[in-house]
């Protein structure tokens, strides 16, 4: 089956392409990319006139999500999480191992992949646990999980507990060239903290999580990545100090990469107090930091110090959030708001251009995880994220595909959204509010 996407702007940083192109998709692969592909030359093709108002990017990859299955299916499942992903423009997600049971062995990995195949929406790349049960004691069976399909290792939700374990993990996973993703938090410093230690938390009487809790752990990981030659990836970087450390590490060629979550570059700790004080939907870990940290992260996105944007999509049932602030679960959903936040706050705000956006959301996540994707090229899988850059978007949590609604962005007006998502040649999401994408529907075509 042939599909011809015509006349859209195509942004592919790897080939240096940014211009109007036609793309021919043959079943699950890209068959041809050209300035003009006359429909007469590809007989039987379904022709879809996208037009120059839409932007076609290599499929976005969210390298940090929580799909909650197995164990917490009341919060999210692989099926609802991947439905949320494709509605948010992500063709692939990497899911953290803090499920129940923990994804610390190949059978759990295979179960997640089986659920993903049945859902048939976004690609799912499981991240295995660094330690058995993520308890921080004994290494999990990393090679076995790699063979089953894990692409990286992390004890996310918690830091890799000790410097020794982190060292061993970097060395051991290093034999496969695979990254250790670390949630950087010195628990002795963060203690019972629930919000960024600073003026706002102090005024509200909330126990603080100091920036230093993140900074010292990032410094530790950089030192250990340096001596082991392993690849440490810093999850959800949130402080100016941690970013400084990453910059310094990169400058001396340590294998260190980092990601930032949209809430950390769009919000700051003043949201604890207003417009709604003690809103549990602004409680996450790491917490919303000071405005100066947020500004430093934006600068890190601009200057290239930050490698990737990842949502840390953390679905929680309403029951886990409709409680006292200090009892509420940490985390927010992010898959269905990330792209609009990036377009509105980064691209339209002239922080970055389109190629850099695609690097942050596609090229670099693919490179860090060592997975396919990150480019639009002939012969490769047709994983495409199609954006409507000027679409007026009003975030409506009630319409999320995710099982959970825990977002602080409900009601936000943003410029730019997702038009359609194509995974392996299959149109898995079409936004009904984008008329020029209508030709892609109904959802069908190709083979998974």
């Amino acid at each position, binding site marked *: 089956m042939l599909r011809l996407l015509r006349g859209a702007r195509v942004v592919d940083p790897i080939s240096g392409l940014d211009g109007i192109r036609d793309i021919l998709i043959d079943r699950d692969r890209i068959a041809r990319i050209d300035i003009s592909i006359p429909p007469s030359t590809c007989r039987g093709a379904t022709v879809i006139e996208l037009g120059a108002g839409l932007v076609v990017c290599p499929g976005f990859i969210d390298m940090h999500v929580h799909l909650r299955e197995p164990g917490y299916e009341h919060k999210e499942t692989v099926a609802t999480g991947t439905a949320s992903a494709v509605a948010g423009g992500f063709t692939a997600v990497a899911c953290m191992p803090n499920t129940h049971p923990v994804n610390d062995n190949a059978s759990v990995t295979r179960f997640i992949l089986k659920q993903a195949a049945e859902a048939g929406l976004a690609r799912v790349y499981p991240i295995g646990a660094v330690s058995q049960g993520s308890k921080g004691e004994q290494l999990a069976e990393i090679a076995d999980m790699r063979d089953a399909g894990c692409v990286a290792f992390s004890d996310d939700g918690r830091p890799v507990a000790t410097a020794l374990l982190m060292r061993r993990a970097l060395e051991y996973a290093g034999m496969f060239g695979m990254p250790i993703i670390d949630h950087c938090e010195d628990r002795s410093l963060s203690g019972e903290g629930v919000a960024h230690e600073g*003026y706002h938390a102090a005024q509200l009487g909330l126990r603080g999580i100091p920036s230093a809790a993140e900074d010292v752990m990032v410094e530790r990981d950089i030192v250990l990545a340096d001596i082991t030659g392993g690849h440490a990836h810093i999850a959800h970087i949130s402080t100016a100090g941690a970013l400084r450390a990453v910059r310094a590490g990169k400058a001396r060629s340590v294998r260190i990469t980092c990601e930032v979550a949209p809430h950390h570059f769009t919000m700051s700790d003043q949201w604890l107090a207003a417009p709604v004080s003690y809103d549990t939907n602004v409680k996450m870990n790491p917490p919303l930091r000071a405005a100066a940290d947020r500004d430093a992260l934006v600068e890190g996105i601009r200057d290239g110090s930050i490698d990737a944007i990842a949502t840390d999509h953390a679905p929680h049932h309403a029951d886990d959030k409709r409680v006292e602030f200090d009892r509420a679960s940490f985390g927010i959903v992010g898959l269905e708001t990330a792209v609009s936040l990036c377009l509105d706050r980064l691209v339209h705000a002239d922080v970055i251009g389109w190629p850099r956006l695609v690097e942050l959301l596609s090229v670099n996540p693919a490179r860090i995880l060592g997975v396919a994707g990150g480019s639009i090229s002939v012969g490769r899988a047709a994983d495409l994220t199609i954006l409507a850059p000027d679409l007026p978007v009003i975030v409506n949590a009630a319409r999320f595909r995710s099982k959970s609604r825990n977002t602080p962005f409900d009601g936000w007006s943003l410029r730019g959204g997702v038009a359609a998502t194509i995974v392996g040649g299959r149109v898995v999401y079409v936004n009904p509010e984008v008329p020029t994408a209508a030709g892609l529907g109904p959802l069908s075509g190709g083979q998974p």
Partner: protein
Amino acid sequence: MSDAATRLRGKDLLGIADLTAAEITLVLDTAEAMKEIASRPIKKVPALRGKTVVNLFYEPSTRTRTSFEIAEKRLSADTLSIAIASSSVVKGETLVDTALNLEAMAPDIIVLRHGSSGACHLLSRICRAAIVNAGDGMHEHPTQGLLDAFTIRERKGRLAGLKVAIVGDLLHSRVFRSNILLLTKMGADVWGCGPPTLLPPGLEQLGVHPTSRVEEAVRDADVVMMLRIQLERMQGGFFPSLREYFNVFGMTPERVALAKPDAIIMHPGPMNRGVEIASEVADGPGSVILDQVANGVAVRMAVLFLLAGGGEHVAAA
């Protein structure tokens, strides 16, 4: 200072943060009228007759709960006190469910004491009843702040321009937060003193002078307020020992001598004699610690009265 207020704007009293200087003055003025009631042979007025007040206490409290109960009874409200041990909350129903159940019985006012900062805000969003914060976590204890201000004003005739030294565990203290918000709004010169491990960040932004030198805080002060030091803070490593704490920060007669001769000594209670305050000071001539307790009833009567829609019933009081 803004124009005189005749009523409180909000439905609730969640914290001093929400009050204007004029509203604070209104509460203090109303409390003066209420205080007179305590000197009558029949200490009861019908101001809240037919109103239902629920005292919902998730933390042990003797002083505050008793004070609210007496205030409610003197105003002729129908009152009910519920004490819930935090331990049973873990397995029991949520705060929201408890509140919705109470709400179904249509109380007019819920007085809430809770260990979590912001618990009163949560309730105010789901309840039609007026919420009175009787202490939420480390956040605020507004009626304590008001009764402290009432006591200072009673003794000093004013709040503006007074040097007030507050010494103790500022980091974990809701009394401290309510007091600094109130006193800075009313134009006092507020000094916060404690070991650096117990000073919250951002004090300067709130208009408070932070210091760890108790002599500097107390020197020429009009008011010296001590805050309770809890044993668990020592276990948390905030300072080495109660003995050392008393040596460095304890309020002794020698330190009090640095303050103005007519300085008053305050403590929200319960006191640890020999930890944050020497008995000679607590029982000394400048101490107004028991006045604070007496004034607590009057201030809480004023708050309940104003929140219950008091304005038009002033005459009845």
